[in-house]
């Protein structure tokens, strides 16, 4: 049993944590790619900026300024610092639900990125700064995993993390591989490596496919891999698992519950393969994933958070 408002906060806590991590990684890869004076670097910047929804930016202002804005701009609601501030605000709302160990990790990180010295630290060593932010977010997830009860509170947070992850990875792959007149296909080696890095997938990928970096294999790995925690299939399976665990107690109305929607998406990814994807292009499947995630999100709200009271009053 937990308050609906608390479930909402925990879910968004998870989403913002995942978003902050993804944005930090994009910035880090982007800055790293531009160190080499090649076209591939510029290409990586375009991919990163498109993946966060700013296709026009990044090229004109220079990648450092773009990365700095992506990380530290408090007026941009889609920056790392804003995501962390919102994650912490949500954590504060549910301070009684998360363990002190978990809270301290997030609070410490928040204090670091909002400190007056953060701007200077970033310009002195952006790679180190971003590395530390990502490491701190991993510590947060580890603390949550090892200190919180894996009950409803934890499940809502994990649900937020995997929902956000499925959408972010889909978006990244859409930008790279879906048919699009603006960007074209990515086939340059350096750019492809950057894409893998943005999904934190380079090392696991190499272990499966060796250093032969092929768009087909990247798609296969990031969409269909069963074990890699950032593949869309893995994220969907997690979403389905957490939702069916919670659905046991949930109220079932007339409409399909979120666990059914998640199960359908999971099955679809389970039985599709990369040949099919190549035949029709990655676009339709990735669009389906994004749309289905949005439907699952709405269904979560209708079932657990913003349900109409009339249906739940005692007879």
């Amino acid at each position, binding site marked *: *049993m*937990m*308050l*609906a*408002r*608390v*479930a909402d906060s925990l879910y968004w806590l998870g989403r913002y944590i995942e978003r902050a991590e993804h944005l930090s990684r994009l910035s880090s890869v982007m800055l790293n790619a531009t160190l080499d004076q090649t076209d591939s670097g510029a290409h990586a910047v375009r991919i990163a900026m498109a993946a966060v929804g700013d296709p026009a930016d990044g090229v004109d202002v220079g990648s450092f300024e773009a990365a700095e804005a992506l990380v530290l701009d408090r007026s941009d609601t889609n920056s790392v610092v804003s995501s962390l501030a919102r994650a912490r*605000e949500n954590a*504060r*709302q549910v*301070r*009684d*639900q998360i363990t*002190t160990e978990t*809270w*301290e990790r997030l*609070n*410490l990180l928040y*204090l670091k990125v909002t400190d007056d010295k953060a701007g200077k630290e970033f310009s002195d060593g952006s790679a180190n700064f971003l590395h530390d932010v990502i490491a701190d977010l991993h510590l947060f997830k580890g603390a949550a995993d090892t200190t919180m009860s894996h009950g*409803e509170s934890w499940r*809502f947070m994990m649900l937020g993390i995997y929902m956000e992850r499925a959408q972010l990875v889909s978006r990244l792959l859409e930008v790279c591989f879906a048919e699009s007149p603006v960007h074209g296909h990515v086939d340059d080696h350096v750019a492809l490596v950057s894409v893998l890095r943005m999904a934190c997938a380079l090392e696991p990928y190499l272990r499966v496919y060796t250093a032969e970096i092929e768009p087909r294999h990247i798609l296969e790995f990031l969409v269909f891999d069963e074990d890699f925690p950032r593949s869309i299939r893995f994220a969907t399976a997690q979403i389905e698992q957490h939702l069916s665990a*919670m659905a046991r*107690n*949930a*109220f079932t109305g007339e409409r399909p519950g979120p666990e059914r929607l998640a199960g359908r998406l999971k099955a679809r990814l389970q039985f599709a393969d990369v040949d099919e994807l190549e035949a029709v292009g990655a676009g339709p499947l990735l669009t389906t994933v994004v749309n289905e995630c949005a439907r699952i999100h709405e269904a979560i709200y209708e079932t*657990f*958070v913003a*349900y109409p*009271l009339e249906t*739940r*009053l*005692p007879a």
Partner: protein
Amino acid sequence: MRIHVADVESGAHGGGYTLESGTARAHRSAPKVMRNVDKSVAAKTQTLVDAPTLPMTEAAYLPGIAYDEMFTPEGEVRPHYDPLHGRMSTLGAEELAGRQRTLERSFLLQGITFTVYGADNTTERVMPTDLFPRIIPAAEWSKIEAGLAQRLQALNLFLADIYGDQQILMDGVVPRELVLGAPSYRREMQHVYVPHKAYANVCGSDLIRCQDGQFAVLEDNLRVPSGVSYMLANRDAAKRTFPGTYRAAGVRPVERYPDLLLATLKSMAADWRGDPQVVVLTPGVYNSAYYEHAYLARLMGVPLVEGRDLVVHENMVYMRTTTGIRRVDVIYRRVDDDFIDPLTFRRDSSLGAAGLFNAYRAGNVVICNAPGTGVADDKAVYAYVPDIIRYYLGEDAILPNIETFLCREPRQLGHVLDNLDKYVVKAVGASGGYGMLVGPHASQKERDDFAQAIKADPDNYIAQPTIQLSTAPCLVDGRIEPRHVDLRPFILSGEKTIVTPGALTRVALKRGSLVVNSSQGGGSKDTWVLAEENGQTNGHGNGSARP
């Protein structure tokens, strides 16, 4: 409560205070106060610029005329401070500063902060905390304990009476119009059944130690007193800062407060509700005491709800959960009376739940503290508390009041007007240091103006003499100096009355200042209540129960 006084020019001497009611609602930042210590004081107290590393010497530590918690007027260390004094004198300035930094960092990390809203950005500050504990010997504490339990018992009986048959008003012990005319009197509470007659389930009284060393009650807080989380956090920190000294001193534990609070709240639920659902009701994350609300909910293991989580249906209170709505039995509310139910009290409030009060009247939910308890900590009613104790319990008050003059009484009004330069005069209904005159520090014109205001509405004013708070050693800028302190113990009252063997000691961190409020540059320190004295324990480990 907020003790308020202008920075006192004569150094550690003199000063007045005023009091007002104590819900932590202010977000104001601490005003910056210039250090205008005059030269004679500076010469007396700040001669240590080129002192050796030991941060305290006899020359540096001059308590002044106030009672000092650690030193006798002759400069001897009081026996119960021996272990701490021994430890303090072995630590150098560097070491102390390091421990102070560790302490502050741990508070920041835990989020024990209050929010300061500025023009362009919002910052969070740590509640300033002093690392030296304030120590109270067992014998003194047993008097405080008995006095507080007696006082709360009488005040609960008083509340039961005035919201019942009003016998005390019939007998003329307390003036009828004083009670029924008080803004905190809630007509809606008339004849509402309150289990165990426990109206104020959580009480945080403010005590001060006068110059003669005796404790006196400055104010009772029966509405939504806060600060208990600081008491627990300070204890946690003190154990890490002075572990050896803590062990050697024999300090009574305060850690049971959350489960005693839960037991108190559960004892308020109706007998037929098997396992009552308790919740903490908070105004939300922007309230300056939010940390405490979340802290107590977490340590009690009960949901922390906001008004928007509650639903009232057919006079039952429910909360919205992920699996539907669920019945609520006891609400420990940290929201003021005015805001708990827009249908009964303030209509523009969205902090409570519509219909909550009717559910309470119907006996389907318990609100703790009961609405309307504020009438018993009213500044004017305060003056009658010794009479109230005598009326209901047939006993003399164990803890004295501060002498208080009611301007509503013509004889007392005349006395106050003739001696405005000696008194602190306060408006009964005002708070935040407004509507107040500190006689000894006011100009003749200010006093004349204030006299006009008093004459125009004498019912609204009370006067009290200026009183020195006692001082205790604090670490300030790397040196150990005396600072004024008060004492806020917490008393629980449900089926039983329990005085927690500890307290929040609030500190006026500015030299000579008597302002202990956190919004005005006040801090806090841990309070050690000793379990034994001269080798004799006083028995119980956790609070004494008084039926």
